[in-house]
C-alpha cells in the first residue's frame, strides 16, 4: 500500500462498492483545497463511522465482560495488561495509520496469549517443583497443614450447626447448646448474631442477613461443608455431619520463631526452602508442601537419575526411529504409487486417486482405535488373518504395528504432494536422460528424485516434526505399552510427548508438572535443532524464506 492516490481525480471512485462502504484509508491531511477536502470527508463518512462505532462497541463489550472478575479477585496486573491491550487495539483501529498492524494484531493476540505465554510458562515451570503436594504458596501449605490436623479432643466445645449463606459464600450458624447464643462462623472467624430465631432442637430458623440452606441442598454440598473450617483461637470449628459442629484443636501449629511446624508431642518439622517441604529430623516430610524453585534439578533428573534416565534414552531412541521411519515409509510408498500412476497411458487415475486419499480423509482418531482393535489378540482382524499373536503386547510387533498404522495414515498425503511435484518436473529433463541412455532407475535416481526432493524438503521436515510428536497414534493405539512388569511409567512404545503427558498426571496418578515441563523443554530443543539444521540445508538448494 505504498501508492496513495490523492488529488481531485480520485474523488469519484469508479468502484464505490455495492455495500456503500467508502474507502476509509484516504488521509484527509493530504487533501488539497477546501472544496475537495469537504467532498472527500463526506464520501468517507459512512463506512468510516460505522467501522469506528463497531470497534468502540466491541472494545466496550469486551471490557464490560472482562473487568468485573478481575476486580473481584483484585488481580491488578491482569487488569493493567487488559487495559493496555484494549487501549492499544482501540487506538490501532481508530487511527487510519499503521495499516500492516491492523492485519497482524488479531492473530498476534491469540498467538501471544495461547501459544507464546504457555511456552514461556513451560520454561518457567521446568525450574520449579510444581505438582501434587507443591501446588501453592508456603502460607497456603501452612494453613492446609493446620486445618487438616484439627481433631476433636475430649471436652472441646460442641455446637448445633445450621448451614447458611451470606453474599453467596458458605457460613456456619453455630448455637451453643447451653446458652443458646448464636454465632456466625466464616472463613475469617466467629462473630455474634443478634435476633436469630432458634428452634427447640437448636436449628436456626431465620437470621437477618443470612439465607438458611435447606438440608437437602446442604447434603449436596457435603464435600464443601466437610472441607470448611472456622478458625478460632485454639484451633478450628469443623462440621461433623450437617447438624453438629465441634471446636477442635489443631494438632500441628506453625511457629514463626523456628520456621517450623510443631505438635504437642514436641515433634518438629523444619521448613526446607530447597525442597518445599516441612521435614523432620528423620528426613520424613509432611504431605503438604509449597512451590519452590529447584534450578536444573528436573533436567538433571531426566539425564542422570537412574530410575528415569535409562528409560529416557530408550524413549528418545525409539522416538527418532518412529519419526524417521514414518517419514521414510510414507514417502517411499507415496512415491511408488505416484510414479506408477504418472504415465500418460494409465487410465482411471482419477478413481485411484479418490480411493487412495480415503485414509487421509477418514477421521484419524477413530481409525486409530479401529486399528488398535484390528490388532486385538483374540478377536482382531490381524489375528484372524495372520494367526493369533499378542501383537500390541510384544514390544517388537507393537512398534512395527505402529509404523504400519502410520504408513496407512500418512502415505496418501505423500502420494498427493509427490504427484504434484512430479507434474512440475519438466518433461524435457526426463526425456533427455532417456535419450542419453540412462536406465529408468538411473533417470529416476539422478533426475526426478533430486528435483522432487528439493520441492518437498520443507514438507518432509514438517512431517518429521509432526511424527516426532505424534501423540494421537501412541496414545490411542498402545498408550505407550507394553509396559515392563516393574515399571508402570514408561512403556516400550512411548514417545517423549506421551511420556510427558503421563508424567504430568492428566490421566491419573501423581502429577509432577515441573518434571513434565522439563521434558517438554527437551522436546522443544530437539525439534528446533533438527528443523533448523534441515531448513539450513534446504535453504542452500532453494530460497524458502523469501
Amino acid at each position, binding site marked *: *500500500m505504498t*501508492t496513495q*492516490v490523492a488529488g481531485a481525480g480520485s474523488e469519484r*471512485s469508479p*468502484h464505490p462498492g455495492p455495500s456503500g462502504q467508502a*474507502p476509509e484509508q*484516504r488521509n484527509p491531511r493530504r487533501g488539497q483545497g477546501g472544496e475537495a477536502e469537504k467532498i472527500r470527508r463526506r464520501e468517507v463518512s459512512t463506512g468510516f463511522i460505522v467501522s469506528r462505532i463497531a470497534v468502540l462497541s466491541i472494545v466496550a463489550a469486551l471490557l464490560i465482560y472482562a473487568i468485573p*472478575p478481575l476486580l473481584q479477585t483484585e488481580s491488578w496486573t491482569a487488569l493493567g495488561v487488559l487495559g493496555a491491550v484494549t487501549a492499544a487495539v482501540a487506538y490501532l483501529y481508530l487511527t487510519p495509520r499503521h495499516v*500492516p498492524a491492523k492485519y497482524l494484531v488479531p*492473530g*498476534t493476540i*491469540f498467538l501471544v*496469549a*495461547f*501459544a507464546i*505465554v*504457555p*511456552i514461556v*510458562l513451560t520454561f518457567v515451570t521446568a525450574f520449579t517443583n*510444581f505438582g501434587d503436594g507443591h501446588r501453592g504458596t508456603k502460607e497456603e501449605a501452612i494453613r492446609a497443614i493446620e486445618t487438616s490436623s484439627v481433631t476433636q479432643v475430649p471436652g472441646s466445645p460442641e455446637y448445633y450447626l445450621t448451614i447458611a449463606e451470606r453474599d453467596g459464600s458458605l457460613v456456619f450458624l453455630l448455637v451453643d447448646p447451653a446458652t443458646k447464643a448464636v454465632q456466625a462462623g466464616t472463613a475469617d472467624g466467629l462473630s455474634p448474631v443478634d435476633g436469630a430465631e432458634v428452634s427447640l432442637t437448636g436449628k436456626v430458623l431465620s437470621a437477618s442477613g443470612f439465607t438458611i440452606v435447606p438440608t437437602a441442598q446442604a447434603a449436596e454440598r457435603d464435600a464443601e461443608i466437610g472441607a470448611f473450617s472456622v478458625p478460632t483461637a485454639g484451633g478450628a470449628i469443623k462440621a461433623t455431619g450437617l447438624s453438629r459442629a465441634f471446636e477442635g484443636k489443631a494438632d500441628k501449629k506453625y511457629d514463626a520463631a523456628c520456621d517450623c511446624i510443631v505438635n504437642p508431642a514436641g515433634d518438629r518439622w523444619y521448613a526446607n526452602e530447597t525442597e518445599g517441604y516441612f521435614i523432620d529430623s528423620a528426613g520424613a516430610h509432611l504431605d503438604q508442601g509449597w512451590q519452590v524453585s529447584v534450578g536444573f534439578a528436573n533436567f538433571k533428573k531426566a539425564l542422570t537419575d537412574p530410575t528415569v534416565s535409562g528409560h529416557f534414552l530408550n524413549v528418545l531412541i525409539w522416538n527418532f526411529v518412529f519419526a524417521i521411519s514414518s517419514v521414510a515409509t510414507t514417502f517411499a510408498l507415496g512415491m511408488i*504409487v505416484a510414479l*506408477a500412476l504418472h*504415465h500418460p497411458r*494409465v487410465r482411471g487415475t482419477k478413481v*485411484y486417486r*479418490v480411493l487412495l*486419499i*480415503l*485414509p*487421509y480423509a477418514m*477421521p484419524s*482418531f*477413530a481409525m486409530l482405535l*479401529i*486399528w488398535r482393535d484390528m490388532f486385538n489378540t483374540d*478377536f482382531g*482382524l490381524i489375528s484372524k*488373518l495372520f494367526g493369533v499373536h499378542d501383537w500390541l503386547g510384544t514390544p517388537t510387533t507393537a512398534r512395527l504395528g505402529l509404523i504400519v498404522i502410520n504408513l*496407512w495414515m500418512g502415505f*496418501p*498425503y505423500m502420494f498427493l504432494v509427490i*504427484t*504434484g*511435484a512430479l507434474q*512440475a518436473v519438466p518433461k524435457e529433463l526426463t526425456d533427455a536422460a532417456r535419450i542419453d541412455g540412462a536406465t529408468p532407475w538411473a533417470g529416476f535416481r539422478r533426475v526426478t528424485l533430486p528435483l522432487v526432493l528439493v520441492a*518437498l*524438503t520443507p*514438507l518432509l521436515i514438517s512431517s518429521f*516434526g*509432526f511424527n516426532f*510428536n505424534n501423540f*494421537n497414534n501412541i496414545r*490411542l493405539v498402545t498408550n505407550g505399552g507394553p509396559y515392563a512388569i516393574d515399571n508402570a511409567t514408561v512403556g516400550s512404545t512411548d514417545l517423549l510427548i506421551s511420556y*510427558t503427558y503421563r508424567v504430568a498426571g*492428566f490421566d491419573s496418578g501423581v502429577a509432577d508438572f515441573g518434571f*513434565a515441563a522439563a521434558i*517438554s523443554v527437551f522436546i*522443544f530443543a530437539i525439534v528446533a535443532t533438527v528443523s533448523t539444521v534441515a531448513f539450513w540445508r534446504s535453504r542452500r538448494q*532453494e530460497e524458502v*524464506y523469501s
Partner: protein
Amino acid sequence: MRYLKEVAWRHAVAVLVTAFALFPIMYVVSAALNPLGTLGSTELLPTGASLDNFAVLFNGQQPFVHWFLNSVIIALFSAFAGLLISVAAAYAFSRMRFAGRRVGLLSILLIQMFPQFLAIVAIFIVFTEITELYPTFGFNQPWGLLVLYLGGALGVNTYLMKGFLDTVPKEIDESATMDGASHVQTFFRIILPLVGPVLAVTAMLSFIGTINEFLIANVFLRDTEAKTLAVGMYGMLTDKRDANFGPFAAATLLTAIPTVSLFLWLQKYIVSGLTAGAVKG
C-alpha cells in the same frame, strides 16, 4: 506385450496399494453393519446388513448428537476464524513492507516448530485461572477450546498462505489501488476471491485437524455432554470395548461424512493447497 511392460505393472501396483488403503475402511463398514455389533463377530466382509448399530448411537446411552455438534461447531469456528486471522497476517507479510517484517516471519516459522500441545502443562495452569475468572471460556466449554485452537492458527497457516499470496501478481492490487480501492477493499474483494480455492483447502485441513484433535480436548472436556467426538468416542471403547465396537464403527462412518465429502468436493485443489507454501510457482 509392450502394454504389459509399460502399463500393466502400474495397475498392479496401484491396485495393491489401493487394497491396502481400503481394507481397514472395509472393516469399519463391515463392523458398522454387523448385526451383533461386537468386535469378535466382525469379519472383513460384511456378514449381515443391519442398522442396529446406528440406532444405538441415538437411543440416549451416550449423547452422540451432542458430541457431533460440539465437534462440528468447534471445528467450523476455528477453521473459519483461524483462516481469517492467518490470511490477514499473510496479506500484510506478502503485500506490505514494514519494520520487523523479516523478524516477524522468522519468529512465526520458529513458533510453528513448537506444537501448541507441548505446552499442555502450562495451558492447563493458565486455563485453571481462566476457569475461575471466566467460566464461559474455561474447562468443559467449547469456547475455551476454540480460543485456544486460535492461538495455534497463526503459526500453522500463515507461512503457507503467504507463499500462495506471493504468486498473485502484485499488479492486480496496484491497479485496484489506482482505481480508488482501499486496502480493506483490495483484501476482501480482490485478493480473497483470487486465492479462494487454496483458502478452502486450508480451511478443510484445519477443520479435519480440529475434529481429530484429542490431546488438548481430553484435558479440557471432562463433562460427558461437553465432549467432542474424539474424546467421547474414545470413552465408548473404554467402557465396553467388545460390545461397543459396532456402534463405534457406525459413529466413525457418521463422523467421516463431513470430512470425506469435504475432501471429495475440494479434491481438485488439494494438491496445490498442500504444496502452496513449499513449491514455488
